[in-house]
């Protein structure tokens, strides 16, 4: 529950919402519904201005985009390919399409607004989107941290094995040697391990 507490404090700050939609009426209705909430709306018709420039300039906290917009691929790639920080994405759709909604949520969309959504629910939907996104990001970070640790341990283990074999060290000695080198040079143990491995392979090959 501590997590939930943290989220409500972030929501108290002003959050910029970038709406990318050619349907002016729909965008304006949504904008009006978000008046006097912590959400500050900027609207773009997708064909008029450059999306990425706008994302760079506005640094939105949330992106709201028409499901039919060609810019979907760009938005989706923001989290996978470039240096942009991932953002919660909410999708507009004319009709209520539950299956499609389920599918895009798996692809990273945080919430969905369909044609018959009551504009009064706009704030609620954005709150949910931010919460869901933060939760998802948290899981992703945990997973990649775990993966990185595993990866790093793999290198250190390999370097240790080589030291034990070639330098007749005990496991403890090998570990201490790697750690000492890392501390002396201000490097990560993983990097020291990689250097050691390539150096020992080089020397092994030269014999």
């Amino acid at each position: 529950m501590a997590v939930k507490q943290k989220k409500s404090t972030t929501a108290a700050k002003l959050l910029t919402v970038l709406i990318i939609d050619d349907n002016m009426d729909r965008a304006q209705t949504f904008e009006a519904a978000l008046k006097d909430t912590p959400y500050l709306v900027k609207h773009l018709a997708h064909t008029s201005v450059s999306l990425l420039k706008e994302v760079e300039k506005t640094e939105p906290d949330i992106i709201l985009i028409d499901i039919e917009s060609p810019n979907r691929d760009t938005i989706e790639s923001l989290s996978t390919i470039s240096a942009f920080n991932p953002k919660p994405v909410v999708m507009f759709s004319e009709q209520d399409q539950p299956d499609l909604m389920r599918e895009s949520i798996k692809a990273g969309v945080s919430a969905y607004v369909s044609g018959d959504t009551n504009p009064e629910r706009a704030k609620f939907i954005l709150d949910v989107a931010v919460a869901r996104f933060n939760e998802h990001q948290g899981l992703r970070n945990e997973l990649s941290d775990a993966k990185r640790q595993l990866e790093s341990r793999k290198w250190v283990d390999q370097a240790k094995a080589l030291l034990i074999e070639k330098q007749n060290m005990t496991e403890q000695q090998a570990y201490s040697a790697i750690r000492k080198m890392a501390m002396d040079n201000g490097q990560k143990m993983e990097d020291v391990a990689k250097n050691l491995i390539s150096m020992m392979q080089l020397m092994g090959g030269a014999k």
Partner: protein
Amino acid sequence: MTIQQDLALEQTDLDIGIVALTDCAPLVMAKHLGFFEQWGLQVNLHIQHSWATVRDRLHTGLLDAAQMLAPMPLASTLGLNGAKCDVINAFNLSMNGNGITLSTALFEQIKQLNNGQEPVLPLDSSWIKQIVQNKRDNGQAKLRFAAVYPYSCHLFQLRDWLSIAEIDVDNDIEIIIIPPTEMTAALENDEIDGFCVGTPWNTKAVRAGIGATVITSCDIWQEAPEKVLAVTSQWQQQHPNTFIALLAAVQQTCEWLNSTANRFEAAAVLQTYLGEPLDVIAPSLIGSCLTTQNGTPRNIPAYNRFISKDANLPKLSQGRVLLDKMATAHQLPHDFTQAQKQQLLKDVYRPDLYKSMLDMKKKMTQLGDIQYS
């Protein structure tokens, strides 16, 4: 007996997703020429504006089949960037078709480095390497390129071309994703310095005088499958006969597209689907790659290939190449084993279904039910 009864079609009305690119021609022309109907199928083509919606609609069954980028069925089956869904490829719709276009400004810089002369095309990427270094030395922003989708040959071809000159594609430059239809606008607005995209969008940039097409995908990779006809594995299992009929109709169209005269007809029909004029669509279809607005076009006979010997047959080896490219682009899990790779290729690539289609066609022709050129 009607063809529906002969083939025992499980479903006759099909919704197929396409993207506005020259290589949607086999699907567009199959409809236009009545080839789908000959095989008992009523097809509605739905233009999709992003690869993400193509993926989501195919996964959820809102589309029965779709034109997809060759790496997409692999990405779907692995569950990269979205939900995991088994998608199969039993038919290569097209080969090649992509090109790299540089902004006029970047092309001018290369000319300056070359003493004011136009560089030789296809362009050696070491010219780009020089500019990358100059920019770094002068503390200027990195060059920014665009590809159409993370799981696309366009991204891999761009990376391969730049890597030949030992450009570190992960650090020396930036690559962003922009959908094909928005590419030329991004180049015109100076958001990017170059892009890799499918026809007709390179041709459009050259015609509009905003860029120079310096190399095509067939200069970088030889004969690479570009778009595939994708269905979910589940849909194929539920509609085996319909699927075979669909493949037969599309293959017939690919054969039809082999003739230059027919390609003019295809270019004319594509105008409505792509929203572009004939002089933008036709060149690549007849093997011509426009280079600069007033420059001499390059003759690239294989620019858009829909059929050559076995071109439509999906091969596991083609998938293996794509998996290697995906790994280089950091798209595959680190712990992905050879055995998993092999299983994935066997699940996604279905030459067996392609061969069933050929057998069925032979039988039908003998029965005299179907006449095709």
